[in-house]
């Protein structure tokens, strides 16, 4: 299925401008359900009613309101809120560049892909090559739909990626959390053993090796239920906390070294619950789309 662009506009940095198209990177495959009335299978719809009267309120009488700290309300018209977006959203303006590895990935929120509109291919490729070569990322602003976003633009393989970014004050700093600390730091020997254990379990990152077992398990469950079978929940079996840290590390190292040798070509995870024959990926994803 060809991807459809979400937005068309212009990238501007310095005096260079070129027209682009924006696409979503994420195509979620989680199984999506809809709400149903269990006793008759009827579809659930949402009805907006007055909270005290219980009477349905027609759309044209509904407004957005903001509650002030004194309990008073400020009523806002849709056009007023729309004007807060700041611009009409035609330009991705890059304000400056920064080293890509200086940005912790926690700042990246949603990823998008950029394509070029006719006439923009050349400048697109020049910027892509220069970002690739320098390892830098463009930081800028851009209005998508109704709100202005802080964005980062980076080279990713053959394409330009755009990430909307979280603002610093949207991240919880560790200083605001109540974190119990140990009275004695881990010993050098414990740290050395833990590092060895990390090394033992270190692998090349191959994202394709991880499959969404849950998606398959949910699809299998749906099919089981469709065939009229009973579905039963299972009990959990959790590991107890480690009583002796050093002994556990030693044992893990012995086990871990053995495991690494044997698992090289195998898939990660036991996959014991992925026994779905019919819940193929194409099947479930097309269902999700046709929801």
């Amino acid at each position, binding site marked *: 299925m*060809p*991807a459809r662009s979400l937005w068309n506009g212009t990238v501007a*940095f310095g*005096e*260079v401008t070129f027209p682009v198209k924006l696409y979503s*990177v994420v195509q979620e*495959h989680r199984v999506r*359900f809809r*709400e*149903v*009335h269990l006793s008759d*299978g*009827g579809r*659930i719809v949402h009805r907006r*009613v007055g*909270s005290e009267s219980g009477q349905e309120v027609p759309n044209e009488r509904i*407004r957005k309101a903001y509650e002030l700290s004194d309990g008073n309300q400020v009523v806002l018209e849709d056009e*007023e809120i729309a004007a*807060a977006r*700041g611009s009409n959203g035609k330009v991705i303006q890059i304000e400056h560049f*920064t080293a890509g590895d200086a940005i912790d990935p926690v700042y*990246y929120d949603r990823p998008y*892909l950029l394509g*070029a509109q006719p006439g923009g291919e050349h*400048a697109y*490729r*020049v910027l892509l*090559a*220069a*970002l690739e070569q320098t390892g830098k990322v463009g930081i800028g602003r851009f209005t998508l739909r109704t*709100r202005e976003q*802080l964005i980062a633009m980076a080279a990713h393989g053959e*394409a330009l990626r755009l990430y909307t970014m979280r603002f610093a*004050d*949207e*991240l*919880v700093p*560790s200083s605001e959390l109540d*974190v*119990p600390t140990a009275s004695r*730091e*881990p010993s050098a020997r414990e740290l050395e053993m*833990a590092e060895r*254990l*990390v090394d033992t*379990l*270190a692998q090349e*990152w191959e*994202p394709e090796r991880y499959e*969404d077992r849950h998606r398959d398990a949910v699809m299998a469950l749906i*099919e089981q239920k*469709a065939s009229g079978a009973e579905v039963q*929940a299972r009990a*959990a079996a959790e590991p107890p906390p*480690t009583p002796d*840290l050093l002994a*556990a*590390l030693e044992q893990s190292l012995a086990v871990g070294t053995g495991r690494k040798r044997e698992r090289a070509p195998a898939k990660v*995870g036991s996959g014991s*619950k992925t026994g779905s024959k019919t819940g193929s990926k194409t099947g479930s994803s097309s269902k999700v789309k046709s929801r």
Partner: protein
Amino acid sequence: MPQGIWNGTLSFGLVAVPVRMVSATRDRDVHFHQIDVETGERIAVQRVCEADGQEVPWEDIGRGYDLDDQLVTLTDDELAAAAPERTHTIEIEEFVDLAAIDPAQFDHPYFLLPSSDSEGTTRAYQLLRDAMASTNQVAIGRVVLRSSEYLVAVRQRDQLLSMTTMLFADELRSADEIDSVPTGSTGEPTRGEVAEAVKLIDAMTREFDPAGYENRYRARLTELIESKRTSKRKVELSVEDEAATAPAPDLMAALKASLERARRD
């Protein structure tokens, strides 16, 4: 002080660390509610059955899935049966380099905190955190949240263990699925143009200072609310009219002009 949203065990080889999970983000958005403009009454949402228009209580609402024209309904308990047995364990399967992970795979960030102040728990927590920090590694594992299983990455960030839910590789669209991504000989750049663009990028480079960016959308909404509070009149904020400009006709000239300006500023 955020509440723990999940309690469980982080398991790493034979070492098990009891942890609680809190969100690493906080909502700073300006939130609105809906009102009936005629009565001033707040709007509530009722769930009603389409068949008879009657309100349906929570316990009578299930999850429906259309499977080949057949409606299959599941209760939350039944759905929980699809989750793995160890629903309160984050089992670390391997360690990988942070830089090797495509940041697009990261979804929501959380912190993991030691769930008790016992010496064993806090030391095991610090040990895992420090071992990952000194080796620059990220732990990959799986966790069950709200009866769904997620792939997660655990690493050291801001002196704590952070855990980020991840999308699966097949949930990410790759560049070759998009026709308008120019490749091959389409718009191929010359070495001179790339060199000029690199100079411009270098001249426009600044330190990344995340706290230095203002959320201007939030600021404008706050300004709007403030001016509406003091005056009942309709408020008109100015909207900048950005023009979709044509591509620069002479790319090299535009790069050179930009470079001069960037060096002047």
